[in-house]
């Protein structure tokens, strides 16, 4: 099971992103981002399970990629996704 975290610059942007994904049939949740991934301390992220490329395109097309993207598989730690 793979999880993708789209780090977001703000709660509002994360909410916009999650709503866009939900509207397009991709389950998405807004969560508090892990501290180790939040450069400036406390942040929000959108989490999806799978359908990464579809989600990436939707968010990218709507200027909603505002931070780094991380991937986690099962018990692995987060790894940054580039592109």
């Amino acid at each position: 099971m793979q999880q993708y975290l789209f780090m977001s610059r703000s709660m509002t942007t994360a909410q916009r992103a999650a709503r866009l994904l939900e509207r397009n049939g991709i389950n998405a949740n807004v969560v508090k981002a892990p501290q180790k991934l939040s450069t400036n301390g406390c942040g929000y992220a959108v989490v999806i399970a799978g359908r990464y490329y579809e989600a990436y395109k939707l968010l990218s097309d709507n200027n909603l990629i505002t931070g780094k993207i991380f991937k986690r598989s099962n018990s692995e730690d987060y790894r940054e996704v580039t592109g």
Partner: protein
Amino acid sequence: MIYLDNAATTLIKPPSVERSVVEALRTMASPGRGGHQPAIKAAETVFNCRVEAAELFNVSDPEQIVFTMNATHALNIAIGSMVEKGSKVLVSGFEHNSVVRPLYAAGARVSAAGRRLFDRNDTLNDFESKISGNDLVVCTHVSNVFGYTLPIYDIAELCARKGVPLIVDASQSAGILDVDFKRLKAKFVAMPGHKALFGPQGTGILICRDGGRPLMHGGSGADSKLTHMPEYMPDRLEAGTHNVCGIAGLLSGIRYVKEKGTDRIFRHEQKLLNIAKEKLEGIECVEIFAGEDQSGVISIRISETDTEEAAQRLGEKGICVRSGLHCSPFAHRSAGTIDTGTIRFSFSTFTNEKNVYDACRAVREICKKDR
């Protein structure tokens, strides 16, 4: 009781507003602060209100919607973002102290355009002749004293043509008239939540073109290691925990307005305004301030009767109106009523025709008694 002080605060709200406030009080915590259910529920409510407000006012992104305590708070942020000491600022002749005082406090050099009541040509021509050389225009959409609806879209066009940024005070128009942010091309549009948007007191909205200067600094729930407010919106202008209960009520109020439609609300208030004009015109001792381009607000004076005393006597008859200067000495100077003030009747979608007939009858009784 007949409540005709809706230009200050709408007292009668859609029932959904009250329900939402209570639900928020019971189930919602700090939005954007925690990951638990009550915090997420609060954040969803705040976000939904941004989305609905953005739709109502034709704003591209919900990030451009900033929640404030009231229109005064919103105007203080807007003016504080645009004005430096010595800035030249042109305002209409009908501004509220929520515009005038922050401008003077910031050290602006203020001049006024268009001081003739219900004369849109004079307003527009005067703005046209005075706008050059100004750093900013601040203009109300509707006078809170007289209901005069200024030609705001023409003024906005003029500002855009001359390259002068615009701040619009939509305190008396939001929820009644078309307030179209894209068409206004304004830097900021400020409005209260507690008037025609039917939110509770303690709510307001500032629509921002592209950011602003924070008036308050503090926690925003994100980027906590930074010693300054984040650059991104709306967090940049929203320090501290939101008024979630108020915003929940405001969300229901905005939904009510959208469902009912501003056109319908405006038509209803026009009908009441016309009844008031007709009935008050028939009373000899009453001086009415009425004209074209008037929204659901009307001011009167009763000859040889102090405006505050008249309002007090109307209050004793169960009719709630506002008297005096309405925090708008600028408008009263323009209209020549600065020494007396006026008695103001203001309607809402919950005011009915009988309310207006009864209020006019009460005015007639006061006149008779004083003669």
